[in-house]
């Protein structure tokens, strides 16, 4: 059942992310049409839809990688297009299947991204230690990124995203290629992070979204079909809503 977002959920303090009428054209093909939503700190939003629904396009618009044909998005009050660098200071992004610089060690990657995210020089060392500890990366800090397993690479990518304590985390298909233990670990991590950040997560595994997200947006063919407030006490309901909303019309 589609339900409006409740304003009195715990942890909310105004929208961290505001998207208004986001529209994007790839040439003549309209990949996204008029997407509008808000996201507050402490909220986990699941972005769902079949392949080609516009999820990746939406994420790229929110990171500023793409410029919307129409509409805008603001992150921590900064327009992601007009004030890109300022907005991205509040962003942590984990792409789908992150390919890190293979010749750099984990430590070097952490230090690099800490500097790129404009962390104060005096705090870089502590910040790197913090995220490395949180993501249990201390044992592999001296290892080259090209020699890491898929699971460790994913953790490193999340660690890089956490540098600078961003307000918004975007996780694109974070459980892809992970084994069950890693999936569970990641789920627990996201639940922990949700207390401090606004999180957008996409996944093809609906059960994972149901476990971590507070709300889900359904997309199909670039359009927002609806929003669903996830009820923890109704497992499987998300799947039913998803199928009902996104089934192709005959």
């Amino acid at each position, binding site marked *: 059942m589609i339900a409006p977002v409740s304003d009195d959920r715990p942890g909310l303090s105004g929208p961290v992310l505001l998207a208004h009428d986001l529209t994007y*054209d790839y040439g003549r093909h309209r990949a996204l049409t008029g997407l509008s939503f808000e996201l507050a700190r402490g909220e986990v939003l699941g972005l769902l839809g079949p392949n080609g629904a516009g999820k990746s396009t939406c994420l790229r618009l929110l990171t500023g990688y793409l*410029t919307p*044909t*129409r509409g805008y998005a603001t992150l921590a009050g900064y327009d992601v*297009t*007009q004030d890109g660098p300022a907005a991205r200071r509040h962003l942590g992004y984990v792409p789908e299947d992150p390919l890190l610089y293979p010749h750099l060690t984990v430590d070097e990657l952490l230090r690099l991204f800490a500097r790129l995210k404009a962390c104060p020089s005096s705090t870089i060392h502590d910040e790197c230690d913090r995220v490395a500890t949180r993501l249990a990366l201390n044992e592999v800090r001296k290892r080259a990124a090209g020699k890491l397993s898929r699971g460790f690479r994913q953790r490193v990518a999340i660690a890089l995203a956490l540098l600078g304590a961003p307000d918004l985390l975007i996780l694109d298909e974070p459980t892809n290629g992970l084994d069950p233990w890693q999936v569970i670990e990641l789920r627990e991590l996201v639940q922990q992070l949700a207390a401090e950040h606004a999180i957008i997560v996409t996944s093809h595994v609906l059960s994972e979204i149901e476990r971590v997200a507070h709300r889900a947006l359904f997309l199909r063919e670039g359009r927002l079909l609806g929003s669903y407030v996830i009820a923890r006490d109704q497992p499987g309901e998300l799947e039913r809503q998803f199928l009902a909303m996104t089934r192709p019309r005959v």
Partner: protein
Amino acid sequence: MEEHAINWQALAWALGWLPAVLALFWWGIRLPLAQTGGAWRRRGRSALILLAGAAVFVLALSALTRHDSHVDLTREKLYTPAPTALAVARGLRVPVSVTYFYQGQDPNAQRARDMLMLMARENALLSMTAIDPDKQPSLAATHGVKMYNAALIEVADRRVIVQGTDEAEFAIGIQRALRERQVQLCVVEGHNEYAIDNEEFHTHMDSGSSHSHDDAASKVIETTGHGIGRLRRTLESVGYDVQRLPLATVTEIPSDCAVVIDANPRTTWLPGESLALKNYLEQGGAALLMFDLGFSLEPGLRELLSTLGVRMTQSVVADRLSHYGTDEEMVAVTGYDPHPITRHVAYSFYPGVRPLELATPTAGVTTTALIRSGNTSTTRAVAAARRPVTTRRSRAHLPAPARAR
């Protein structure tokens, strides 16, 4: 040294150009990349921005080229015009136009073109155009230029053509064009003198050690000389106008002849010619007379030379110690007095040279010996008849080239 003086204006331009370009670059790369609107609108805007960037690049380069400066780091300043040429260019006070018709494939001509361009940068009054006659033959014909590597120099209504690849010669050509009156040299002809319009560069002289004809003759065999065209061209290149003077056909030597030159006459002068020379000298003229063995002096001419303190006999100088090779008559002069005429002359040979005897000149005339053979030199009388001349097949004389005005 002045020729290496720094062009402060150009340097200031360059020092200002670089920060300006860097500032434009810095501003350009920080232009927003993100653009709203449809795909075609974005492409159009991007294309316009790129075109604007290209335009800025072209304009910036044009601005620098207009205020360019040449830097020559070679030790010998090979790529800088000669100091004399630069001085001439800088000293111009009236407009001068130089059109250089150069052979595009000739590296020397390319260098000459570049040197002329550098000279033109020194003074806005000097305009320079380079034309390759192979690409624009009609232009060359229009200007009446028929040779490669010819610089047409125009000042007001005066034109001078200088052929060559030496910027110093071009500078002299400019000076010639600037002169409103040219110094004229008159070369006597009509006595089988050396031609002044040949193009060859040398005259053969063979030693007599390998063969001789009779005791009365000099052992030096002189082959038919090609001419003194090189002398004429050299004189013209330093600004003189060289004219022929058929002395037998005039009653008096023209007063605008600054110097009368007679180079190796073979036949005797007429009395009237000697009289004309005498009158000319008495009126303040100057003469360079080069009389060789075999030339018989007409009595009037002998008398004239006598009044000037010079006597000539039919004899040849020989120096047993100071000579070239094994032939004593290839006399070598090893030193010269510091006279203005011979100050820069170095060790020289005078094969089969005829001696001059100094006599007491007329009152008011001073005689100074300029070239002396060594203390061990002697003279040997030869027969009055002309020395045998070995004739070599010589090239047909070229017609006299058109004299540049």
